[in-house]
């Protein structure tokens, strides 16, 4: 049911865009006004979430330790999985952000046939699909800069060339189109068909998957099936970035559907689990060095404690100490 609700929500959004453009003629609204609103909500929402996270104190080091802690120099420690230096933390964060090391660790418990014992084996499909989807999306977002930048920078052209390297079909199919869509599709199938994962999946797990699949599908159809007017679309995008929104005639309604779903995604990001794109940088279980005992960490909300230091104590009792023959540090 959770999946169904999310699917229906995305289909309603698609219908809203198609009806709005085809029946009500709201091209300028969908293509020239709503994107500004969505982008503003996106930026403000992300800033709001990050500043709220920045207010949370993290008094002590709480990294998840996935290897031997640094103790004595001659005991080999795990520099990346249990880092005690900033360099180690940066290495760990890079591996996590770029290559999803924690997903790579995913294991599956099963009973080995014949042997009556539990065996843990690597389960890497989710890691592979997540890598394909996230990297596919990153590269295809970068590719989309050709619509937003005029003149198109060399580096964008170079990425487009590399992505279409296999020169299959006209217009060429991009590698990342398939990486993105297939990765996403696997992530959806796993929520639908693995019972344990289906049990814990909520509508807000399915909604972004369907939304992104909708964006990917409309994009695919625009490029490879209806072949809508790319120059017209770029003129509209240039209107957006130059703050003079306009509507190009003859652009297919799939384009408005595509951009409407993107707007919904932009508005949805700051208020949903997709904020993991900012949150991954701020995970205290990953971005802290395990140096609890090597460095002094002061709890920021400690109230000021009135202390009586030894020099003060000695000043206080010096005469009495001398009378009693107790050695003092200062005469």
């Amino acid at each position, binding site marked *: 049911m959770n999946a169904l609700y999310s699917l229906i929500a995305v289909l309603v959004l698609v219908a809203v865009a198609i009806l709005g453009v085809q029946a009500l003629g709201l091209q300028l609204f969908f293509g020239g006004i709503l994107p500004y609103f969505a982008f503003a909500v996106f930026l403000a929402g992300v800033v709001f979430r990050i500043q709220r996270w*920045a207010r949370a104190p993290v008094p002590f080091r709480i990294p998840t330790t996935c290897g031997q802690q640094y103790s004595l120099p001659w005991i080999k420690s795990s520099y990346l999985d249990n880092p005690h230096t900033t360099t180690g933390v940066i290495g760990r964060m890079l591996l996590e952000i770029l290559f999803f090391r924690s997903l790579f660790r995913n294991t599956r418990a099963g009973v080995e046939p014949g042997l009556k014992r539990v065996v843990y084996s690597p389960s890497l499909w989710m890691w592979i699909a997540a890598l394909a989807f996230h990297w596919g999306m990153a590269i295809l977002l970068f590719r989309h800069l050709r619509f937003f930048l*005029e003149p198109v920078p060399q580096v964008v052209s170079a990425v487009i060339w590399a992505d279409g390297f296999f020169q299959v079909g006209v*217009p060429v199919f991009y590698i990342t189109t398939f990486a993105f869509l297939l990765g996403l599709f696997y992530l959806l199938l796993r929520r639908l068909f693995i019972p344990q994962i289906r049990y814990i999946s909520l509508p807000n797990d399915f909604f972004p998957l369907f939304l992104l699949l909708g964006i990917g599908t409309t994009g695919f159809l625009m490029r490879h099936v209806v072949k809508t007017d790319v120059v017209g679309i770029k003129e509209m995008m240039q209107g957006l970035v130059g703050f003079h929104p306009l509507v190009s005639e003859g652009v297919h309604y799939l384009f408005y559907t595509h951009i409407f779903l993107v707007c919904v995604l932009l508005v949805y990001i700051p208020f949903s689990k997709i904020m993991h794109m900012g949150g991954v940088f701020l995970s205290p279980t990953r971005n802290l060095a395990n140096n609890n005992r090597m460095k002094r960490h002061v709890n920021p909300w400690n109230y000021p404690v009135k202390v009586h230091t030894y020099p003060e104590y000695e000043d206080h009792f010096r005469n009495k100490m001398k009378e009693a023959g107790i050695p003092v540090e200062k005469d």
Partner: protein
Amino acid sequence: MFYDAGKIFTGLAIFLVGATFPFWYAMAAGKTAYKPEPVFPTSTSQCVESTEQMIAGHMEILDDWRNEVVRRSDREPIEINGTAYPKSLSRGCGNCHADQTQFCDRCHEYAGVSPYCWECHVEGD
């Protein structure tokens, strides 16, 4: 009260600049009002398909022609309204759209498309 404000807000600033980069780029380049204007031939107003179909599907037509000519040796010209068009980029399309830089490249460069036609074809062939 913020903790690690320096690191967090530096990261946030990088994100904001990156996300709004197209706006800054547009301001610096100042070309948002530019529209590509391919030069159409004056000799005739008819192509092998209507303008809309050519905009959407010219790459498919060329791909089909390439496959027919190169792979199946089928050089039978396309006949439309009594005019025969050879299935050739240089000798067919090029008859009317003589200048690649004035016609093809105008839109292709604008849209960031670099088709590999001219890896084999020499312009003006």
